C-alpha cells in the first residue's frame, strides 16, 4: 500500500511540472546562419508508419538501448510500455506482455531478424541464448496484442521483433570492455568492412561473465554464467533492385544453476542441487529481396537453426529449417496487399533424465502457413482498414485460422485512433504432448497420514492436449497535443479459451529409480477459460532540448475459471494469474548535461506476484547511467542497476527452481570506435 501512495505522489509531482512553450514561427523564412543556431532534439525517431499503425506498437530504438546501458536483450526490454520483465536468477529472465509471465512465457513470440527463437519443446524463449552485441541492434519492435496474422502461431499476447543493423551501419571497428560486481566482465569486439563494392560485412564476438545471486537467506548461490557468442552479417546490393543478406551466429554458454529436485531415496524430500547448463547453438540465414517496381517487393528467406541444451533435467538437440516467402504490392489505388507462405521443419532429439521421462527421444515436426492481408485506405474519411488472415497447420495441432481486422483513423498528424479484433492460437509444445515430469516428492505419511509410501507428483503430457485460443479486442489512441508531448494509450479485452489445466488422475503405485512411490499424476487438459483486461499508458515529454521524460504505466486484471477443477496441490489458475504484477510503472529521465555528458535515471515499480505457497513483494527500484564522451571515438560510462535495494527477489520460475535475490549491480564500461 505504501508503494502505491508513493507512486501516486510521484505521478502528481511529474504532472505539475510546467510544459515547455511551442514556438510556431515560419522557419523556412530564416536563413542558414539562423537555422544553424537552432537547437534540436531527438524527440521521436519512430518510423511514422508505426505512429499510424492500428496496433499497440512500441519501438525500442538504438538510442534507447544505448542509454539504458543494457548488456542483454531482457535488460533493454525493461521499462518498455506493457512489457513485464523480471529477473529470475543471474542467467534467467521472465519476460511477457499482457500477463502469463514465466521462465518460458508461452504466449509471447520472439523473432530475431524474422527468425523465430521460440522453442516448440517447452513453448517459450531462452533469453539467455540471445546474447547479441547490443550496439548491433537497430531496433526492437514490441507489439502488444496478437500478431498471429503476420507472424503466426504463439503470437498470442505479443510479439517482440529484434532487428539487427545492416552491415553498412556497422562499418569500422568497435571495442567495448566492462567490469563490475554482478556483470563481472564483458568484452565485445566488432569490425565492419567492405569486401567488395556494394557489399558490406561485419564480424563480431562477445563474451560475458555473470556473478552469482543470493538465495533467500542471503547466501551466495552457485548460479553464475559464462557466455560467448560470435557472428557475422554480409549485405550485398545487386543492381538497383535486389539485395542479398547472409547472417550467422554461434554461441556457447557455460551456466550454473540451482534446482529443487524430488528426492528419489529416503528421506524423499525435495532437495536443492547445483548443476551445469551447457548450451551450444547457432544459426545461418540467407535472404534475398527484390523490388519489382515502385510498389512491389518480393522477399525470400531461408534459415537453419540449432541448439544443444544439456542440464540435469533434460538434454535436447534441436535442428530447424525454415523457409519463407513474402510479397507486398499495390494491386489497386489505396490498397496495399501483402501475402506470403512458409514452411518449417524441425527435429528434436531429447534424452530422458530422472526428472523428465520421454518415451521416444526423436521427434520430427513441421508447420506450413500461408497468409494474406490487405490494407485499404479511405483518404477522404482519413481511415485505414486492415483485413487479413493466416492459415497454419502444424503436426501438434490441426489447421488453424488466425484472422484480424484493424481500423485506424488519422484525422491529422497529431492524432491516431485505432481498434482491432483478432484471433490467435498457442500451439501445444512437445513437452505438453509427451513428456512426463517428476515435479516434486513427499516423504511417507506426509500427504496421507496412513500411507507408508513416499509420494511423487507428476505432470503427464497428453497427446490430446489442444491449442489455446485467444480472441482479442483492442482500442488505442496516440495523441501529440504539442510537439514536445506525446501520449499513447491502449486498452484491451482478451478472451481466452482452452487454456492449459491439470486434471488430477487416480494415484497408482509405480517404481521410480528402484523405489516404490505413490504417484499422483496431473494430466494436462484444456479446461481453463476466462478473460483479461487492461490499460497501457505511455507519455513522453521533452522538457527541454536536453531533457526528456518517459512515463509508463500499465494495469491488468486477469479472471480465469477452471471448468473441471481437481483438488490438486497446484492450482493452475493462481499459478498463471498470480505471477503477473497487476500494475507496472516507470519513470525514465534522460538528460544531456553537456554535449559530452549524458545522465539517465530510471525509477520503476512492479506490483506483487503470488505463487501458491509464496509471494514476491512489490518493489520500487532504480537504475542510473552516467556517460562521458571525452573524444568522439571514446565513451566511458558507469551504470548502476537495482540501486535502491541491496538485493531483492523479482520472480520464481516454474517447477524445480530455487528462488534468487537479485543484487545491486554497478559496472564501468569503456567503448572505443574507429
Amino acid at each position: 500500500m505504501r508503494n502505491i501512495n508513493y507512486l501516486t505522489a510521484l505521478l502528481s509531482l511529474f504532472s505539475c511540472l510546467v510544459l515547455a512553450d511551442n514556438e510556431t514561427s515560419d522557419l523556412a523564412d530564416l536563413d542558414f546562419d539562423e537555422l544553424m543556431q537552432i537547437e534540436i532534439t531527438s524527440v521521436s525517431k519512430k518510423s511514422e508508419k508505426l505512429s499510424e499503425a492500428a496496433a499497440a506498437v512500441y519501438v525500442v530504438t538504438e538510442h534507447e538501448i544505448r542509454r539504458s546501458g543494457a548488456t542483454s536483450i531482457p535488460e533493454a526490454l525493461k521499462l518498455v510500455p506493457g512489457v513485464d520483465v523480471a529477473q529470475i536468477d543471474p542467467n534467467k529472465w521472465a519476460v511477457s506482455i499482457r500477463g502469463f509471465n514465466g521462465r518460458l512465457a508461452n504466449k509471447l513470440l520472439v523473432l530475431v531478424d524474422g527468425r523465430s527463437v521460440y522453442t516448440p519443446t517447452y513453448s517459450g524463449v531462452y533469453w539467455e541464448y540471445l546474447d547479441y552485441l547490443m550496439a548491433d541492434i537497430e531496433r526492437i519492435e514490441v507489439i502488444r496484442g496478437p500478431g498471429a496474422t503476420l507472424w503466426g502461431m504463439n503470437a498470442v499476447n505479443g510479439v517482440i521483433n529484434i532487428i539487427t543493423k545492416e552491415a553498412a551501419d556497422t562499418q569500422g571497428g568497435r571495442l567495448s570492455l566492462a567490469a563490475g560486481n554482478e556483470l563481472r566482465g564483458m568484452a565485445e569486439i566488432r569490425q565492419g568492412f567492405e569486401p567488395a563494392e556494394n557489399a558490406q560485412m561485419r564480424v563480431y564476438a562477445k563474451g560475458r561473465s555473470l556473478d552469482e545471486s543470493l538465495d533467500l537467506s542471503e547466501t551466495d548461490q552457485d548460479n553464475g554464467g559464462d557466455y560467448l557468442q560470435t557472428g557475422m552479417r554480409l549485405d550485398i546490393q545487386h543492381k538497383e533492385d535486389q539485395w542479398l543478406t547472409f547472417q550467422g551466429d554461434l554461441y556457447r554458454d557455460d551456466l550454473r544453476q540451482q534446482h529443487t529436485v524430488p528426492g528419489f531415496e529416503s528421506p524423499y524430500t525435495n532437495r536443492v542441487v547445483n548443476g551445469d547448463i551447457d548450451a551450444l547453438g547457432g544459426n545461418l540465414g540467407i535472404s534475398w529481396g527484390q523490388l519489382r517496381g515502385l510498389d512491389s517487393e518480393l522477399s525470400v528467406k531461408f534459415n537453419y537453426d540449432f541448439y544443444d541444451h544439456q542440464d540435469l533435467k533434460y538434454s535436447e538437440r534441436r535442428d530447424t529449417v525454415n523457409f519463407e516467402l513474402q510479397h507486398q504490392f499495390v494491386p489497386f489505388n489505396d490498397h496495399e496487399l501483402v501475402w506470403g507462405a512458409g514452411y518449417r521443419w524441425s527435429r528434436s532429439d531429447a534424452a530422458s533424465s530422472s526428472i523428465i521421462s520421454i518415451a521416444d527421444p526423436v521427434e520430427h515436426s513441421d508447420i506450413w502457413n500461408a497468409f494474406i492481408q490487405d490494407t485499404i485506405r479511405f483518404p477522404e474519411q482519413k481511415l485505414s482498414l486492415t483485413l487479413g488472415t493466416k492459415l497454419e497447420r502444424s503436426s501438434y495441432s490441426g489447421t488453424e485460422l488466425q484472422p484480424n481486422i484493424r481500423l485506424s483513423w488519422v484525422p491529422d498528424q497529431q492524432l491516431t485512433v485505432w481498434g482491432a479484433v483478432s484471433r490467435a492460437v498457442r500451439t501445444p509444445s512437445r513437452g505438453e504432448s509427451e513428456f512426463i515430469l517428476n515435479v516434486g516428492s513427499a516423504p511417507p505419511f506426509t500427504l496421507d497420514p496412513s500411507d507408508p509410501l513416499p509420494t511423487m507428483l507428476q505432470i503427464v503430457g497428453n497427446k490430446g492436449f489442444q491449442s489455446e485460443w485467444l480472441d482479442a479486442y483492442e482500442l488505442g489512441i496516440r495523441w501529440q497535443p504539442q510537439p514536445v508531448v506525446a501520449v499513447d494509450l491502449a486498452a484491451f479485452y482478451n478472451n481466452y479459451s482452452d487454456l492449459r489445466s491439470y486434471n488430477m488422475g487416480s494415484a497408482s503405485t509405480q517404481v521410480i529409480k528402484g523405489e516404490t512411490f505413490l504417484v499422483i499424476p496431473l494430466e494436462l487438459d484444456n479446461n481453463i477459460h476466462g478473460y483479461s483486461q487492461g490499460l497501457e499508458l505511455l507519455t513522453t515529454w521533452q522538457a527541454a532540448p536536453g531533457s526528456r521524460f518517459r512515463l509508463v504505466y500499465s494495469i491488468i486484471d486477469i479472471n480465469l475459471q477452471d471448468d473441471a477443477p481437481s483438488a490438486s496441490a497446484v492450482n493452475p489458475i493462481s499459478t498463471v494469474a498470480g505471477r503477473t504484477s497487476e500494475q507496472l510503472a516507470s519513470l525514465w529521465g534522460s538528460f544531456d548535461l553537456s554535449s559530452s555528458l549524458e545522465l539517465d535515471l530510471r525509477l520503476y515499480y512492479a506490483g506483487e506476484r503470488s505463487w501458491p505457497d509464496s509471494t514476491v513483494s512489490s518493489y520500487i527500484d532504480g537504475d542510473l547511467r552516467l556517460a562521458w564522451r571525452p573524444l568522439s571515438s571514446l565513451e566511458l560510462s558507469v551504470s548502476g542497476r537495482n540501486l535502491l535495494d541491496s538485493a531483492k527477489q523479482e520472480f520464481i520460475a516454474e517447477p524445480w527452481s530455487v528462488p534468487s535475490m537479485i543484487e545491486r549491480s554497478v559496472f564501468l564500461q569503456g567503448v572505443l570506435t574507429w
Partner: protein
Amino acid sequence: MLRGGALRLRLAFFCLLITAAEVNSAPAVHALETLKAAYMYNMAKFTRWPASTWDSPDGVFQFCVYGSGRVADELQTLHNKKIAGHSVVVQKPLNEADFRQCHALYIDPSEHRRYRYILSLINRSAVLTISDDTRFLRHGGLINLVEKDQRLRFEVNMRRLSQTELKLSSKLLKIAILVDKPR
C-alpha cells in the same frame, strides 16, 4: 515496509531525477521535422539548376516527396514559395514516370530499400536529392541531413555532385560536411 534508509534512498533518487531536468531548462523546442523542411528549402535556394531545366519562366519547381512521414508532411508547407524564381509545387510521385518531373527529391528513410531504384528513375544530372538517413549517400544520394552536437547539419556527397550539372553555392558548401566517398 520501507526502512528509513531505503526510503531516503528512494527520495534522493527521485529528487535527482527532477533536479537534473531543471539544470537543463533551455529555450523553446522546434520540431526537428520543421527544421529539416526549412533546411531543404534553403538548400534549394542556394542551388543553381542548368539553364535548360525550365522552358519558360512560368514553369513550376517540382519538389518531389517520396514516402510518408512527418518530414514529408512538413514539406507541404513549401507550396507556393519561390525557388530560382519558380513557384514550388510539392508533389508525391505515384508511378515511375512521375519521377522524371522532379527538380528536388526528398525520400523518407522508411523507403530506404527503394533508394537505388528511385534514383535510377530520375534525371540524375539535374535533381537535388535529399534524405535524412546515413544510408542515403551510399546508395547514390546527394545530400543527407544529420544531427550533430544538437544542431542540424548536412553532408554533401562531392563525388556524386561532380557528376551532376547542379551548382551548389559556395556559402552552402562552406557550412556543409563534405563527404567524398561515404562508407
